[in-house]
Structure formats: structure tokens, C-alpha cells
């Protein structure tokens, strides 16, 4: 066993001042210790989901690592104050940059994220576990043991309390996870700096420690300054490609990425289309229905503010009026002004036949008496109760009132492969309001096998010809779209009534299974 050098005993200054200083350090150290744990657990919940699992495994691993640290502290000898300062600096830098590093690692997909995550948790936990035993040993010479234990542990728990209250109320919402981590890193470094000053006369290698402290603080301050940029960088990696546009509207977050000639639109992180294969999705959405209605002149599009469905609709010379109702003005403005997007949608939204309305689709339908020959319903999937109402019997009844005699509507209906029961629930819902349905599907590589349901008061017959210039559909293959393989074929389903909203529950179950 090495000889312990506990230098405080020879200090000429009043012992109580040193004690107080060390106890304040304990308070800060304890705060920092808990802060790293909370930051890491929150980050893991944010990136991986399932917050109960993340919090419980990370807190468990962290506490275990602290135990390991406490046990290892018996092997730490020599100049205790010097060791303490070294450990503070190590905790500060490692703990401070843990969130930044982990986020960047996740975004860049460097190696197995979970392993990195728990390695970081263990490393920080071990270092934090070393701190308190060391402080107690430093103070040991001056305070009676039972006072020592009571004071140090009391302050330790107080520090934890302070952070556990500040973290959810102030730190996480206002500073963000990365900056919170770095802030506590700085606090650890500040404790090191303070200890350096207090014990300056008893430290043999003061200069080395001084340099290390300065460097750590500079690093952490630098990190603090560029945290915003780092987060942007990580977001760019997360989307894999260059972000060419991003905007947070009152309704949603729009992000457009480009990689070579592939443009992709994400709404709230969900892929809406890839320019590589969107023609498959939109041709399949519009033409089987519209081509079967040779006299259709008035067309309504609900959702679909990207104008891609409208581009397909404008292929029909007999269509003389297209009304597009999309909630978000930012979306329709973007897709009628940005050159790389108007190239994609053929400048459809600026066509004189097209009338763009920015309103809630249902409010507009409730307030408006117009009827249409063909209606395209291109809403987001029924992933919430608010969206589920747009796939309900009540909504389809409302929609039917806007359908001209002989008219037809088509509903984008999620994937009959990934969410088979959801898909057939949508068909059953349309049937329950007295419509005859024709469900079909098409393969869109970036989405997988995708489903649609055509519905009208009269039975549907597949069209014999399509407009010129289609890249996906041919009259010959169209009947195949209406045939379902065994793994997508019809299953019994209850209609989606507003008072049950069984579709929302089904959809969640089925897609949850897919993303697992």
C-alpha cells in the first residue's frame, strides 16, 4: 500500500475554510455526477425511444460503475489532492463531451451505438465513483469520522437534489442536452481549478496540472460555443444527405435533402417522397381512378401540398378545375416557388386550372357545398387520434356529400403488407358508409408495398387506356394491382368509428412491429 499524502493537515490556514471549500466542491461534484446520468439517459431515450428502458438501464449501469469507482479508489494513492484534480479534469472532459460525442456517433453511425453508450456511461460512472471516497480521505485527518460521513453524504445528496429539480425545469428545456453536459463539465473543471488554488503550496507538479486545467476549460468552452453547429452537423448526418431546405412551420417540420439526383421530403422526420420513385406512388394514386372517369372535370385533392398528385391530374385535358386543400401555406408556397421543386411537380401549383386553398381540409369540406367528380385523399397515415378521424366513417360520410353522381374517390391507405389489418380497416370503413370499394396496391421501393382504396357509389372498372407519358402504369398490368398476394389479402375488419378509433390502435401495433 502506498503512503498517503494528505496535505491539508499541514495547511496554515484555518481548517474550517478548507473544509467548507471541499464540501462546496462535493455539492458541485454531486450535481455534475447526477447531471451526466440524466443527460445520457435523456439522450438515449431521445435517440432510441422507450424511455423507461433507457432510463432504468442507464441509471443502473451508472450506479454500478460508481460502485466500481468507489472500490477502485482504494488503489489510488500518492498525493491525493493531485489525484483529485486529475480525476476532476477527466470527469469534466469525458462527462462534458459525452452527450456531444454520443449524438455525433449516432448520427454518423460510427460503430454500434449501444456499446459506445454504455462504455461512456461506465467510464464516467467509474470516475464519478472515485470522487467522493477521495474527498473523504482528504478530509479524514481533520474531522471526526462520523461528522465526516454525515456532512459529505448530506451535501452529496443535496447536490443530486438540486440537479434533479433543475434538469427537467430549466436545463433540458432551455440549454439542451449537449450544452447541459458541457456546462457541468465546466463546473468539474472549475472545481479542479479551485482545488489547484487552495492547495497550491502542496502540489509538486503544479505546472503540469495548471496546463491540463487550462486546456480542459478551453476545450469545454469551445464545445459550448459550437454546440449549436455540432447539433446541425449531426442532423445532417442523420438525414444522410445534404439538407437543401428546412423549415419549422406552425404545423410541421419540413426537411428536404438531396443526394446526387435524389430529392427527398421529410415531414416530422417521416419520408414523404423520394424523387427517384415518387412517380410510382403518384401515378398509382391518381390514374387507376381518374382514367376510369372520362368525363371528370372537377377534381379535389386533400393533402398533397407537394403538387405531385396535381401534376398527374393535369395530364387529363378534360379536367378543367383542380382544387388543392392543404393545411400548411409554407408547404404549398415552397412547392410553387422553389425551382428544383417546381421542376419536379411540373410547376403544377401555378397552373391556371389549379386553385390552392390553405385550410383545414375538414373545415373546408364542412363550410363548402362544392361537389367533385374525383377526389384524391392523400393525408398522413392514421398515427394519432387527430389523424385517425380523417379515416373515420364520419369523415367518409362528409366526403361522400362532395362526390358528384358517378364520382369516385381514392384514399392513400398505408401499406397492406406492413399494416395489413389497418389497410383492410380503411376499406371496411369506406364500405360501411355505402360505397363500393376497389382496393389495390403498388410497389414504391422507398416505401415498400403501398396501398390505396378507390370508392364510389357505382362499381369500379379498370381503365383501358392511360394518358401519354406514364413511366409506371400500363393498362395491361393494371388488373394485377387489384389482386392481393396471400400475405396481403383481405382480413375481416371493423369500420373505424369515431367512438372507437380502432384504426389508430391497429396502425400503432402493426407499424410498431415493423420498426422494432
Amino acid at each position: 500500500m502506498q503512503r498517503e499524502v494528505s496535505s491539508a493537515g499541514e495547511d496554515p490556514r484555518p481548517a474550517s475554510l478548507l473544509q467548507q471549500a471541499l464540501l462546496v466542491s462535493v455539492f458541485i461534484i454531486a450535481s455534475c455526477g447526477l447531471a451526466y446520468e440524466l443527460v445520457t439517459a435523456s439522450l438515449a431515450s431521445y435517440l432510441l425511444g422507450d424511455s423507461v428502458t433507457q432510463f432504468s438501464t442507464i441509471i443502473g449501469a451508472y450506479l454500478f460503475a460508481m460502485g466500481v469507482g468507489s472500490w477502485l479508489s482504494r488503489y489510488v494513492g500518492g498525493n491525493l489532492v493531485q489525484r483529485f484534480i486529475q480525476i476532476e479534469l477527466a470527469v469534466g472532459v469525458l462527462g462534458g463531451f459525452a452527450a456531444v460525442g454520443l449524438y455525433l456517433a449516432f448520427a454518423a453511425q460510427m460503430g454500434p451505438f449501444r456499446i459506445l453508450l454504455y462504455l461512456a456511461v461506465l467510464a464516467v460512472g467509474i470516475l464519478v465513483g472515485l470522487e467522493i471516497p477521495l474527498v473523504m480521505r482528504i478530509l479524514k485527518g481533520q474531522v471526526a469520522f462520523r461528522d465526516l460521513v454525515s456532512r459529505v453524504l448530506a451535501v452529496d445528496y443535496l447536490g443530486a437534489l438540486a440537479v434533479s429539480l433543475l434538469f427537467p425545469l430549466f436545463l433540458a428545456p432551455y440549454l439542451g442536452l449537449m450544452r447541459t453536459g458541457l456546462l457541468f463539465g465546466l463546473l468539474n473543471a472549475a472545481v479542479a481549478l479551485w482545488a489547484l488554488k487552495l492547495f497550491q503550496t502542496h502540489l509538486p507538479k503544479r505546472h503540469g496540472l495548471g496546463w491540463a486545467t487550462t486546456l480542459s476549460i478551453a476545450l469545454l468552452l469551445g464545445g459550448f460555443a459550437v454546440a449549436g453547429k455540432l447539433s446541425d452537423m449531426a442532423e445532417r448526418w442523420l438525414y444522410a444527405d445534404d439538407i437543401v431546405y428546412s423549415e419549422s412551420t406552425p404545423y410541421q417540420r419540413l426537411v428536404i435533402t438531396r443526394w446526387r439526383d435524389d430529392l427527398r421530403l421529410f415531414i416530422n422526420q417521416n419520408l414523404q417522397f423520394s424523387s427517384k420513385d415518387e412517380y410510382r406512388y403518384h401515378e398509382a394514386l391518381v390514374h387507376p381512378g381518374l382514367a376510369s372517369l372520362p368525363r371528370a372535370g372537377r377534381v379535389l385533392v386533400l393533402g398533397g401540398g407537394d403538387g405531385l398528385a396535381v401534376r398527374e391530374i393535369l395530364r387529363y385535358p378534360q379536367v378543367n378545375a383542380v382544387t388543392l386543400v392543404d393545411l400548411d401555406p409554407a408547404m404549398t408556397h415552397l412547392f410553387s416557388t422553389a425551382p428544383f421543386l417546381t421542376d419536379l411537380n411540373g410547376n403544377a401549383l401555378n397552373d391556371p386550372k389549379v386553385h390552392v386553398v390553405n385550410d383545414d381540409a375538414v373545415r373546408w369540406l364542412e363550410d363548402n357545398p362544392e361537389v367533385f367528380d374525383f377526389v384524391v385523399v392523400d393525408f398522413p397515415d392514421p398515427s394519432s387520434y387527430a389523424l385517425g378521424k380523417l379515416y373515420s366513417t364520419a369523415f367518409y360520410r362528409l366526403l361522400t356529400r362532395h362526390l358528384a353522381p358517378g364520382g369516385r374517390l381514392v384514399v392513400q391507405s398505408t401499406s397492406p403488407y406492413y399494416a395489413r389489418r389497418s389497410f383492410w380497416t380503411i376499406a371496411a370503413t369506406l364500405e360501411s358508409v355505402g360505397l363500393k370499394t376497389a382496393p389495390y396496391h403498388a410497389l414504391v421501393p422507398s416505401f415498400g408495398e403501398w396501398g390505396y382504396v378507390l370508392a364510389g357509389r357505382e362499381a369500379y372498372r379498370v381503365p383501358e387506356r392511360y394518358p401519354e407519358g406514364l413511366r409506371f402504369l400500363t393498362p395491361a398490368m393494371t388488373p394485377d394491382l387489384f389482386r392481393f398476394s396471400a400475405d396481403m389479402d383481405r382480413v375481416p375488419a371493423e369500420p373505424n368509428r369515431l367512438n372507437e378509433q380502432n384504426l389508430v390502435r391497429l396502425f400503432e401495433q402493426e407499424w410498431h412491429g415493423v420498426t422494432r
Partner: protein
Amino acid sequence: MQRREFLALCGAAALAGCSKGAPPLPPGELGGMNFKAGHRLWSPGAESQSGIEETRQVGVLIVGGGIAGLSAAWRLERAAYRDFQVLELEDVAGGNSRSGANAISAYPLGAHYLPLPNPEARVVRAMLADFGVLQGDPNAANPAYDETYLCHAPQERLYRQGIWQEGLVPRLGVSRAELDEQGRFFQQMETFRQARGRDGRRYFALPLAHASRDTALDGLDRLSMHDWMRREGYGGEGLHWYVNYACRDDYGTDYRQVSAWAGIHYFACRMGHGQGADDVVLTAPEGNGWLVKRLMERLSGRVQTGQMALRLSQRPGKPVEVLTGQAAGGPGVRYLAEHVIWAAPLFLLPRVVEGLPDHLGNALAPLSHAPWIVANLSLSSLPGAGAGAPLSWDNVLYDSPGLGYVVATHQRIRRAPGPTVLTYYRPLSELDPRSARTRLLEASRDDWAQAILADLSRAHGHIREQVSRLDVFRHGHAMARPLVGLMRDGRRDTLSSAWGRVWLAHGDVSGLSLFEEASHWGVRGAEQILSQQGAPLHERLA
């Protein structure tokens, strides 16, 4: 070591970090019952102060424009009998089912839902069929209902231990043994639901007029719901909270005072179903205000508001004389009515009737009424979702003095929900009714607003920043209290029998302030009068 100083310092630092200073209260008004006019009834010689300038003769005079009075009028109108007049003390009719509206939405000022009616609730079913909400045969086992009025999913959730859970019965973080106990409780309620007396009728029918007269279960009326639960060995904290919640919600009264018979009735009476609709209620943005609006449409201006009956007297062989005054002051009217349907709260009778017979006076004496607060909060956007179950129509906070809130815009179909109105309910069940009414008169709008925002902030940390307006509505005598001993004492027979040419028709007759009861007694009064007059009834609903 100055540990105390250190602690104090930490405390001060923590406080400095938190106290941004509470934001100022949102604007709003204190509204509700017309205390002044109501209390004029108490003063002796009230009718002489107003002065009577006119005498009017009328076939049927209906006193009270709440659900009972409007239902009576609806029944007369349905029989094409139009020689009637409804008098309502307040500025608007509707009683406990009144509603308000602002730029965001209509919202309830009182009752906010109607359970799907039982087959025996023929009045409610006929009414809903008349309004087109019940479609097809009103006597069908599972009628179809207009789904715009069926409460959309998710219907209700409970905030407990920091998490919102589906439904109102505490289930998350509850032990297996307690869950089993809850199962046993609901199983026992199901047995009560099916239980029939020797006359073949259900014990716990709704309306009560259809209940069995068998006295086998009358013992349940001799102890409180709380004591009954203890007696049956129910000890779970969550179940006790839930049952007390139900009693406060439907009766405005703590379950330590509610008769076990009434407490069980709450759980055992309802068996209404609809096509594709179980365990669901009928509601609208304005709560039950939509029913008042539909009733009023049928009554083509024969409802006079701001009119109070000050004196009522009847002599054999003569029309009933009713002297009225205007709530705002001003000359009254002397009505000579062939029949009167008294559809106002029954506790007013002794103050209005000269020489009220003892048997009625005695039957009324034990009656008391629970006061309520209903607050409407306008929010710039939906309240934050919080952990767990998503925002529902009815959102309840565990261990709250209030009963939670309903969301007025819940029935809208919208992609972006936008601003909303929350209606917060607070029975003053922790006080006896008299002190509670004193508190109601003394507490200011700001007092209530502080308390309500503090309560809701437990679940919605940022709600103060979202609320742009908070109106408080007071109900002084909202609900009859079904106390121990009042449910099976034969009082109902006394109160519902003919008293000369006057029929008492109010939820108070049953001692339960429920839509089903009020509408039953109102329609029954109307039908009795119609049949006495020899008018063709075509149907008997009550």
C-alpha cells in the same frame, strides 16, 4: 461547520432559480345563478313589492325551465297541446344543462354528457329520436346513433403518479391483489345491474320510476357507500378514490354521505347500447346544452325567462293562482292556470306555496342540494400531452378537489386542432352545503382562478401561459344529495302523486339530479294532465 447556513444558502439559490414570478391571472368573469332574484323568494310579502298589473289565463303553467320543465313542454307540444307557458327565473333556460359560447367554441356551463339511454328510459329515447340523433326504432335493443354525438375516442384518462392512463379506474402501478379486487367490485356491480325484484323489474332501473318495488335491497339505503365498501371488504385506495369520484361527479356529494343504494345505482343502472357503440356517452361541444337548444326550437317562444313564481295557491274547483315577478324587478303577472307543472327545485315550494300540506312539507324537509363551480378556460392551443395516454375528452386528476376537465373541441374533426376551451368541474363536496354556499358567495373569481390553475398545473406545467380567459360559473343548488336513508323511504310516491291541480316534476322527486329523471318527471306531469283532459295521448312515454 455552518451546515444550517449552507442549507439556507442552497435553498435560497434554488428559489432564485425557480421564481420567475407567477404570470398574472387571465381575465374572466364570475357568473352563474341569479342569487339576488332567487333570494327574493325568501323575503315575506315578495309579491306585493313587485305589483301585479295583469291577469292571464292559461291551460298549463310550467314553473321552471330546466330539463324537467322543457321536457314537459316538449311533451305537450308533441301532443299538439299549445295552451301552455314556461316560466324561468334565470336569463336563459336550461338549468343545469345551460351552455355558453365564445369565438373558439361552444362550451358547457353544467352537465356535459348523456349516457346512451336504457331501454326503459323511453322519454329520453323518444326525445333523441325526435331530434334525429337516435336513428330508426327508438325501442330497439341497440339503436343506431348519429356518430357526431357519440363521444370520439379516446374518451377518458386519469393523471396519477405523473402519468396519464387510459380510463378513470387507477390501474397503472396498482398491485395484482388490488386489480383483482377491482374486478370483484365491477363483477358485483354487474350482478346488481341484472338483479330483479319479485315484481320482475330491475332494482336499479333508470329512471327510478321503473325500478322494482321489492324491498329486499332496502338495507343498502341504511349505510353510506363508503361503509358498504368497507363492509364488503373493499380496501384498495384506488378503488375507493374512484367510487368517491363517481359520487362527487354524479351527486356532488362525498361517498361517506351518499347512500350505498345511490352509490351502487350509479354503477348498476346503465345498460344502454347502440350499434357499434358500447361504453360511450352522447356529448357535444356545449355539453348537454345541445339538448336544451333542440328542446327550445320545438317550443316556439313559449318560454319566458327572467320570470319568477312568487306565490302559488290552489282552492278546490278553482284554477291555480300563481303570482309572478320579474327577476330584474318590474310588474308581475297573475296567472290563473287549469294545471301547474312545478318543474323548479322542490326546496322552493315551502317558500312559494301558501299552506303547503304537511305530507309534502315533511317529504321535502330532508332534501338538500350540493353547490358547484364550473369554470371555462380558453386556451391558445391544446394542453401539453404529458406522459402516457393522449389528450381525451374527459381528463381527470387523481386526488384533486376538482373532477378534471372536458375538451370542448374534442368532437371536431381537424388536422390541426388549434385553440380550445376546457371546462373544469369542482363540486364543493368537502363542505356541508350551507357553508359551501357561503364560500360560493364570498370567494372571488380570482380565488377560484388561482385554485383551478394551481390544480391543473400539476399535470400541465405550462397551462398558465396558454390560458387567455377563465370564467367561473356558480351553481348554488345544483344537485339533490342522495344521502343515507333518502332513497328507499317512500318519499318518491308522496311527491309524485297528484296534489290537486299541481304536479311536481323535477329531478328532486327522485332525489337524483339526472337528465333521465328530470325528463321523466316532466313528461309524466304533461301526460297526466293530457289524459285528465281527455286529449288523445297516442303513446305513454312516462
